[in-house]
């Protein structure tokens, strides 16, 4: 019997909202959006946690500007606060080494991290999902009780085709979808809005491609002033949060 299964929701039970940022598709901005969401919540005085569930390609630590932080042991492990966000990532343990894993190992890693991480009294937990619908996603769907999904896509039929797979999966399981966020728009297009309408999903708005963003990755103060962040803040403010 796996002793971790019974404890996972115990660890999360005092959290008000658990928001998983997903897409199914890679490279659409899940990590930058989930990290920014956590930073914005925290700026708005919410105690916020961020969990990077992309074990094989974690990037939230780069966006957050993590350095050599490491969790402390206290009846479990406590996520260090980085730019006031309580942050947990496999990065602490692997640093920049590749972590090739078979599915069952991904499942094990998921369970272990969630069983031992003490989020204390955070109000929001943001989860940065990996691409695909594999073990991480299936474990999230299976083991985390209350959760809402924020879908991210680019306005491309290649993205939407893959996003649609995650959406179908979530709808079949009646898992709440907060809405769909269009990212990296480079020209007028209504395919995402149309898709949202047709599938009865809340269309949250779009974020234009921001050419300046690359140079502010990891520089939180400047990053928080980019158009990307301002656009995201406006959408989140109007549509879902704070």
């Amino acid at each position, binding site marked *: *019997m796996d*002793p971790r*299964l*019974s404890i996972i929701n*115990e660890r999360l039970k005092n959290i008000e909202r658990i928001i998983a940022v997903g897409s199914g598709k890679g490279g659409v901005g899940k990590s930058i959006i989930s990290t920014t969401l956590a930073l914005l919540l925290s700026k708005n005085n919410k105690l916020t946690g961020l969990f990077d569930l992309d074990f094989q390609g974690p990037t939230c630590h780069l966006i957050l500007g993590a350095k050599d932080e490491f969790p402390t042991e206290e009846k*479990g492990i406590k996520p260090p606060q980085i730019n006031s966000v309580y942050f947990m990532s496999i990065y602490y343990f*692997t640093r920049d080494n590749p*972590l090739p894993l*078979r599915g069952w190992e991904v499942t*094990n890693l998921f369970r272990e991290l969630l069983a031992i991480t003490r989020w204390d009294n955070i109000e929001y937990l943001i989860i940065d999902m990996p691409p695909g619908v594999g073990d991480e996603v299936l474990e999230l769907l299976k083991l985390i009780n209350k959760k809402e999904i924020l879908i991210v896509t680019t306005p491309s039929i290649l993205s939407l085709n893959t996003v649609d797979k995650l959406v179908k999966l979530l709808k079949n399981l009646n898992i709440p979808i907060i809405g769909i966020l269009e990212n990296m728009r480079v020209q007028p297009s209504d395919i995402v809005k149309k898709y949202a309408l047709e599938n009865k999903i809340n269309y949250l708005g779009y974020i234009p491609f921001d050419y300046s963003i690359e140079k502010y990755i990891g520089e939180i103060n400047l990053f928080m002033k980019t158009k990307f962040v301002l656009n995201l803040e406006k959408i989140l403010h109007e549509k879902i949060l704070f």
Partner: protein
Amino acid sequence: MHEWALAEGVIKTIKEYSKDKKIEKVVVKIGELQQIDIDIFKFALDELKKENSMNKLSIILEIEPAVLKCRVCGKTWSFSENLKELDDFIAESIHFVPEVFHAFIKCPNCGSPDIDILKGRGVWIEKIKFKGE
């Protein structure tokens, strides 16, 4: 002492599983790879038993040696000796999350990181025996 968190999982699982039935004994396997501090783990189990009015419950801990097998060349080997030689950061990381070992350990025969933990990964409830069973 993150061992406390694992002990909580063990106690909570036993409690949920037993419901109202009387348990005679529980066998918990402790995989060597995770290098659990047994004294701390026992201490945590004892404290948690008290908190949950399970004082008389007997939990037997069995250490399971770590045995690895390369999925590419098939080489199988005991990892017990190697555990002592790991550098501190790697040892601590594996202690928290055993799977992290895939980032650091390679097959001594073919160099692949595609390695299966045949035995001795971490904490596992092997058996719950009810009274009169």
